[in-house]
């Protein structure tokens, strides 16, 4: 991301930079607003629009994910899940839950470190939202086309850990501290296989940019995905499996849900949280799942590319919206697999998690990186 491009001193350069960025928000603003509006207003307005879009999307998506999780869990567990609220299959359950959480008393326990305790949920949710900036939803439907998109996501998402340590430490509860420490150990360890498992596609595309990666998979009428590439699928499939295991650990999903493992640590780092602050952690979990799945969808499963999508290219807005839909569905499918795993397997122990991370995943991802390099060499 070019800082000078965001805060240029010269208005002309600013306008050029804005035009270059090519995101929907600023484009739309430039189209609507009369000429002569200063560049910073457009930037700020675009940021505001982007924030509103992310906020709206994340809230709706998380609520849907929570409802989906409960339905998936229900059907896996020979029951139905929510069936009452809203009529059809309890579709309004998450809304009801959200309202309930908003109305609940916000308890800050005695002896808590109040600053950390209150700051932690905001930090956690804030970082989760920030990662959405780089997700390639569709052509033009990116808040920011970050050159180092994946790098940006890895970097920002690890800030969540700090928020969780703050939450655990600030709660004045030993179980919370345990949860926070496990989170720190686990996420820090799995950054390595997570980062390395992204390297094969990066080598394949020659770029860290998620948009570039998506556009590179547009061939074959939208089916030339990395995982289908006949020359490299033998690297793509194992590297995706490794990536998927790593994101399970990164997003604290079962079987790696040790930071909040409720049969051992009560609820881990968010034991003492209630009401809206608790829901922030909840939203963060689903937002993080979506972002990680989005990275997976963009790198391995063609991002927004899908057969037939090019028919809509005549109408940019419709094309964008359809692309957003394709991308969201692909990501949600991966999210569904994460749910499926969660409701099937037991939880690992912390030493087993570490063993898996350091002894197996890290070497295997290194082999994958090497294999990807080899594949590129053979191709050339």
């Amino acid at each position: 991301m070019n800082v000078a491009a965001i805060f240029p001193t010269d208005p002309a350069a600013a306008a050029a930079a804005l035009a270059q960025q090519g995101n929907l928000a600023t484009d739309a603003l430039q189209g609507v607003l009369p000429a002569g509006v200063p560049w910073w207003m457009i930037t700020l307005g675009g940021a505001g629009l982007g924030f509103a879009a992310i906020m709206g999307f994340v809230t709706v998506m998380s609520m849907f994910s929570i409802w989906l999780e409960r339905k998936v869990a229900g059907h896996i567990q020979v029951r139905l899940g929510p069936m009452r609220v809203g009529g059809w299959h309890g579709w309004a359950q998450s809304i009801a839950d959200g309202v309930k959480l908003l109305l609940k008393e916000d308890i800050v326990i005695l002896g808590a470190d109040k600053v950390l305790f209150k700051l932690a949920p905001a930090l956690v949710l804030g970082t989760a939202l920030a990662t959405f900036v780089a997700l390639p939803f569709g052509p033009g439907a990116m808040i920011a086309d970050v050159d180092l998109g994946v790098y940006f996501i890895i970097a920002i998402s690890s800030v969540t850990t700090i928020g969780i340590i703050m939450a655990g430490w600030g709660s004045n509860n030993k179980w919370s501290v345990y949860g926070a420490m496990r989170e720190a150990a686990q996420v820090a360890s799995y950054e390595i296989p997570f980062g390395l498992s992204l390297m094969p596609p990066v080598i394949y595309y020659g770029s860290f940019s998620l948009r570039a990666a998506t556009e590179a998979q547009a061939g074959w009428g939208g089916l030339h995905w990395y995982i289908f590439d006949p020359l490299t699928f033998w690297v793509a499939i194992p590297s995706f499996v490794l990536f998927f295991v790593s994101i399970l650990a990164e997003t604290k999903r079962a079987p790696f849900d040790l930071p909040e493992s409720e049969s051992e640590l009560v609820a881990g780092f968010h034991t003492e949280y209630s009401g809206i602050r608790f829901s922030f952690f909840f939203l963060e979990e689903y937002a993080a799942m979506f972002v990680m799945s989005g990275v997976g969808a963009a790198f391995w499963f063609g991002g927004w590319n899908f057969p037939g999508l090019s028919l809509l290219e005549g109408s940019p807005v419709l094309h964008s919206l359809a692309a957003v839909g394709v991308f969201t569905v692909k990501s949600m499918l991966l999210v569904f697999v994460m749910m499926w795993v969660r409701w099937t397997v037991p939880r690992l122990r912390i030493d087993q998690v570490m063993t898996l991370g350091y002894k197996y995943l890290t070497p295997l991802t290194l082999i994958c990186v090497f294999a990807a390099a080899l594949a590129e060499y053979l191709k050339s």
Partner: protein
Amino acid sequence: MATTSEETSARNADGVREFEIDVRTQDVELNMGPQHPATHGVLRVLLRADGEILTGGQCHLGYLHRCAEKIGESVDYIQYLPYTDRYDYLAAMNNNLGYSLAVEKLLGVEVPVRGQYLRTIIAELNRIASHLVAVGTYGLDVGAFTPFFYALREREMILDLFEKICGARLTYSYIRPGGVMNDAPAGWLEGVDEFCDWMDSKWKEHWNLLIESKIFIERTAKVGVVTAEQAIDWGCTGPMLRGSGVDWDLRRDQPYLVYDRLDYQVIVGVGHRGTVGDCFDRTYVRMFEIVESVKMIRQCLAAIQDGEVCHPDVGLLLRPAPGEAYVGIENPRGELGHYIVSDGSKIAKRVRVRAPSFCNLAVIEDILPGCMLADAAAIIGATDIVIGETDR
């Protein structure tokens, strides 16, 4: 993390320590319970932990103490029966049975044959229900949610059968001194037969979903090992004792009811995936006892004849002969003993309940040190305690 000096010190070829990491931090005291998801009720375990590794544990009981034994000295024999339901509420039929047998021993009456068969069927059905909950909740303890619901699905069918025969789903008071409350309604025995077929067909599902899961084996094998000597010394009974490789089952070795007429196997832990006596072996024993129980029920169904179900002389007001009787039966969790002292009046002088969970729990203080924090949940879960029973 400072652990035992064995692990943190490097040794040279002569076995002499070359250096030692002597960074020892203060141990954390963790209060596991009385409100904790892994303690199966209101058990409180005070853990001392060095990071993730436990250095000690101490059980504090009594949060659910309801003075069952004191009540036994103030109500008459039949009135006490509903209190027996409440110690091990997951196997209330078996509790009824243990108490009834002890009272019958003092009364000197033998239950009619049909009553004995009905009791056996009921006791084995309840054993299946209890083991299902034990294995299901054990899944919860190690983080697998789904097996629990599968277990409840099967248990629900047993509860439906119980509801048909006695009207209650949790606290039955169906087996009573002298026999059982009433004969099985028409079609009930066929329902039991159907359930046996169902359980046989679904057992493999439980086995594949939970027990054979790689992560489950990792979490339970070689964890919380209780050796045979330890188990005997600490008075462990039931699956806890058999899991440690001791071939002992009261149904076979102190035959009561009609168990001597049935053909079944006593399941003993063999270290299927790790060491003999680990948490996996206890679960393994429970899983296979379900199969054996189904086998027993089938044989009972084949052998049961028409007839009386309750001894005609045993009424509602009992005056057993003076004396004292200890009867131990094989409950799902181990030996449930009732020691009743009578002076010939209608109220017992002493009703002592020897609860299996109480005795099985004592051993965990011995095996907790050196385990990891997550293992504490696994060990308590594999012990399969019911707090209603430990505290009575």
